[in-house]
């Protein structure tokens, strides 16, 4: 697997650990960005490429767990590998529960960190693909007129055109026209696909 094009972020308050890991991972072809403070990592830009975060748990400003929460709040989905000099079990359990892909206790070998990074990058690729798809669908949803959006919602709920027409007090033909346009604008080949799109961008679960 080529590592080129993947970014590894490192957050560790120890400058030497940052530098050494950067050298090691660069030698494996990764693009590496390291930070000694959580806030700096949050502030930098995160291009949508396969990436993962190698994160120390104890940090002076925001600790690793809090950073994990802050990332979730900003919808920054980057798989996290925790590293710690205090490797104890309760901590690792907490990390894994919060969605970390791995938990390494310091010091770790090259093999261990690479074995942790590989699945993290795969996960990141899958997440990015999913997000790209969702934003594409959202873009299409934005192109719908308010009427079309309403019809889309009701179709996604599983209503038939006839039911929609009755509910809205509109002619069946009009609903069919709207529905056709929704299918076209959403680039859905079948109703099943349309419902799938609705689920992905959260239309089906919203009000109305």
């Amino acid at each position: 697997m080529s590592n080129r094009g993947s970014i590894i972020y490192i957050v560790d308050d120890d400058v030497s650990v940052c530098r050494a890991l950067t050298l090691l991972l660069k030698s494996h072809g990764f693009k590496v960005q390291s930070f000694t403070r959580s806030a700096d990592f949050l502030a930098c830009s995160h291009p949508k490429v396969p990436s993962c975060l190698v994160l120390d748990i104890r940090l002076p400003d925001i600790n690793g767990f809090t950073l994990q929460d802050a990332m979730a709040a900003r919808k920054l989905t980057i798989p996290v590998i925790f590293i710690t000099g205090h490797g104890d079990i309760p901590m690792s359990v907490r990390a894994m529960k919060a969605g970390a892909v791995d938990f390494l206790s310091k010091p770790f070998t090259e093999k261990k960190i690479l074995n942790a990074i590989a699945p993290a990058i795969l996960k990141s690729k899958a997440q990015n693909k999913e997000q790209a798809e969702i934003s594409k669908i959202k873009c299409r949803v934005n192109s719908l007129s308010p009427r079309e959006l309403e019809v889309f919602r009701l179709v996604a709920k599983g209503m038939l055109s006839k039911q929609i027409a009755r509910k809205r007090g509109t002619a069946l033909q009009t609903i069919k026209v709207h529905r056709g346009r929704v299918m076209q604008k959403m680039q859905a080949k079948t109703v099943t696909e349309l419902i799938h799109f609705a689920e992905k961008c959260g239309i089906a679960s919203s009000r109305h």
Partner: protein
Amino acid sequence: MKKRTKNPVLKNKIRNGERVRLEGVVRQQADELKIKDRQLKNGAKKQIRSEKQIWIRTKKIDEQREELLHVTRVGKLAEFVSSLAHEISQPLTAILSYAQAAQRLLAGREPEVQKILSYIINDDQRASEVIQRLRSLLKKSAPEMKPLDINAIINETVTLIATDAGVRNTVIKTEFDKDLPFVRGDRIQLQQVLLNLISNSFDALENNQGDREILIRTSLKDVGTIFVEVKDSGCGIPAQNIPKIFAHFFTSKPDGLGMGLSISRSIVEAHGGRLDVKNNPDRGATFYFTIPIDKKGA
């Protein structure tokens, strides 16, 4: 002179009568003495018994104090070693990654340097194994969480440290909210926190001329939390030290390890509470912590 009689018979009679009377008196006094002696003996026995009781009780307190001090020392040592392990594992991580990066960069070249790098890697791993072993050796036993009466724990702690307080001429006063619900915690660990706060106050009061008083107060902060304050009128804490005071290895005492407050804070946090400090408006400082009540018991 007048009473002296010349009749020898009469004289003898009087003498006999006198002797009988005197003998009676002596006998009576001997009896009284015997009773008093018995009473004394009984009293002494009683006193010995109560002295023995006091001695046993003191010994028990001493033993408890020793046990607690031992736990505190072991706790300090464990915390110290674990901090040390962390401090050492940082450079070890860096060294290992440097060496492995260099190995990769030199791939296929410089066999001699490659060999040296592999030696560095081996020795780095040897050192980290030592640390791993040390860590597993000092793995802390899980705290025993039980419903506890915080006021009783404070009283126990004050008893434990009473001698010390006496020597230091310091009075420990308590002001308890009597109707507090139970908290959930580890008895020894909470005593450790209190002992630490009290002995810090002792040190802060060291240079007080007159009043040396520590006030421990408990109250209900809100439905789920109990609030404990340890207040002294000592030297207080310089404002610039307040943010650092709970950090590992921070100490303002010449012979301090800088572990007490950091351990105390980690204990309180492990109980789901918060330990903090503020300087009093007049003088001295107040350390205060919260501790959640025992929900199961409530």
